[in-house]
Structures are given as structure tokens and as C-alpha cells.
């Protein structure tokens, strides 16, 4: 009974092993979405130029040779330079491509919060509560208004 269970376990593992390695195997479709066609200036996925075909063939050869996605991208960088990567790398100056939008968003959020606080504080200084009643005419304006109204017999 125990031997049968062990055999079954081995069979299950053997069946799972190929699918696990297949899951880790690099895929041309996935890599095409992450790298550029340097001559076309577009994602490789969208490119049909002769250079793009050569680049695809190069990727296919590396996949067949058992290289992983990272190794293939490294090989492409060695051939074409960093600009072959559609997404900047997360280090060095390229990191700014990720950091600048975050920092800009935070700066904008802080500026907005400060602006709202200042606006609310200014509202509080003017007496708070509801909206202020409109101010009527004062001084000579008020006298002129009274005189004008007096001329009309309403």
C-alpha cells in the first residue's frame, strides 16, 4: 500500500515537473511586449521590419537554448544598448522615470492640501459660519442713493 502511494506520488511529481518548467520558460510573446525594435522605435510586438524579424529570430534562438526572460533581455541590451528595453530599468538614472511621477504627485498633493488649509483658514478669519451679507453702499454713495430714491414717488 505504501509502495503504491509512493509510486503515485512520483508519477504526480513527474507529471507536474514539465508543466512547471514550461511555466518558467521565456515566451516570445511576453518578451515582445517588453522590448523595442530599435530601428522602428516601436514595441517589437508592433514591428514588422526586417530588423524586427531578425530580433525575433534572435529571441527564439535564445528561448530554444533554454535562456530565461532576464537573460534574453540582458542579451538584447548587450546587442542594442539599454534603449532596447521598453520599460526603463529600476536603477541608476533610469530610476527617475519611476520616481519623478511619484515625487510630482506627492508635491502636487501637499501643495493642494496646503492650499485647502489656507483657504479654510482665510474663510474662518472672515467670521466663519455662513456666507457674509453683501455690504451696502457707504458714505457719499449712500446719500446719493437716498437722494435718487427720494426723487421717485413710489
Amino acid at each position, binding site marked *: 500500500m505504501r509502495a503504491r502511494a509512493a509510486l503515485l506520488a512520483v508519477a504526480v511529481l513527474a507529471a507536474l515537473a514539465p508543466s512547471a518548467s514550461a511555466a518558467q520558460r521565456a515566451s516570445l510573446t511576453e518578451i515582445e511586449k517588453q522590448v523595442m525594435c*530599435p*530601428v522602428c522605435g516601436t514595441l517589437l510586438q508592433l514591428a514588422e*521590419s*526586417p*530588423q524586427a*524579424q*531578425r*530580433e525575433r529570430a*534572435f529571441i527564439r534562438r535564445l528561448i530554444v537554448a533554454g535562456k530565461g526572460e532576464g537573460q534574453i533581455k540582458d542579451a538584447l541590451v*548587450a*546587442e*542594442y*544598448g*539599454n*534603449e*532596447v528595453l521598453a520599460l526603463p530599468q529600476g536603477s541608476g538614472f533610469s530610476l527617475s522615470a519611476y520616481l*519623478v511621477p511619484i515625487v*510630482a504627485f506627492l*508635491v*502636487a498633493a501637499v*501643495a493642494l492640501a496646503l492650499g485647502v488649509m489656507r483657504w479654510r483658514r482665510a474663510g474662518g478669519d472672515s467670521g466663519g459660519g455662513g456666507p457674509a451679507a453683501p455690504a451696502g453702499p457707504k458714505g457719499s454713495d449712500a446719500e446719493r442713493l437716498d437722494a435718487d430714491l427720494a426723487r421717485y414717488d413710489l
Partner: protein
Amino acid sequence: MLAVLAVVGLLVFGLISKGSSGVALGDPAPATPLPRLQGGGDESLAQYKGQWVLVNFWASWCIPCKQEAPALESFQRQHGGPRFTVLGIDSRDLSGDGREFVRRYGLSYPQLRDGDGGAAHDFGTTGVPENFLIDPAGKVRWLLRGPVDDEYLRNEVAPFLPKGNS
């Protein structure tokens, strides 16, 4: 205010970094070191000072490059020497494909590799093939944004070259 300045700064940086590039007749030729396509090590146009150099940008996937390669090799065999050489620059190409191209067409002149297209950008190329004739002082004396053939090389390039040695 700070955010506005930052955005303006980024825009200016973008404009400067994407600014116009390229060479015109009489300009000094860019002499950034490039790796050799075969054999390892770097080389730059500065090493060819004192010599006429026909710089040929090409790529193995480019059909006109295949068509002009025999003419360039023939011109090199005829004129190549201490005072003139063709210098191939394999641009935005796979190095293995580039080496195979050199082997297939039996190209005997020196070949450099410009994988990221930086040298092509410095020269202001718009594609491949493009040809630039550099004088012994390192200045661009002639350029053709397209393929050359035997007749063109004989009529347009050869007259620049010193008689007798090449």
C-alpha cells in the same frame, strides 16, 4: 512655483537631449570610440587622422547594403592603403548577423559596431546605408544618404583621393 520650474526644466532637458544632431560638409566627423565588429577592442575615427576614410553605415538586414557591399569592397581593393580606407559601421544590428554579412560578402576593410545607433545618431543618419568621406584632418568632405555603386564611387569619391597610392 517649484513644481512649475521643475516641469519647465524637464521640458528644456528633453528638448536639449533630443535636439538636432548630425554633420554637414566641413564639420569635424564624430570620433566616439566603437567596438570592433571582429576581434575585440575599440577603435575611433581619431585613429585614422592623416588618412582619407569612407565611412559606410550599414546593417545586415538592409537590402541596399547588400547591393552596395561588393562595390565598396572593390573600391577598397583598388584604393585601400596607408592613405585611404573604407570603414564599415554596422549599426543597430545583431553582432552575429553583422559578422556573417562581412563573411558572406568577403569584406576586407575594418568594421566597427554601433549596436545602440549612437554613432549613427552623431552623424545624423536617417537610415542605412549612408556614406561619409572624411578627409585626413577628420572633416566631412562628402556624404551620400543612400547606397553607392561602382560608378558613383569612381566619379564622386575617387577624385578626392590622392593619386598614386591611395
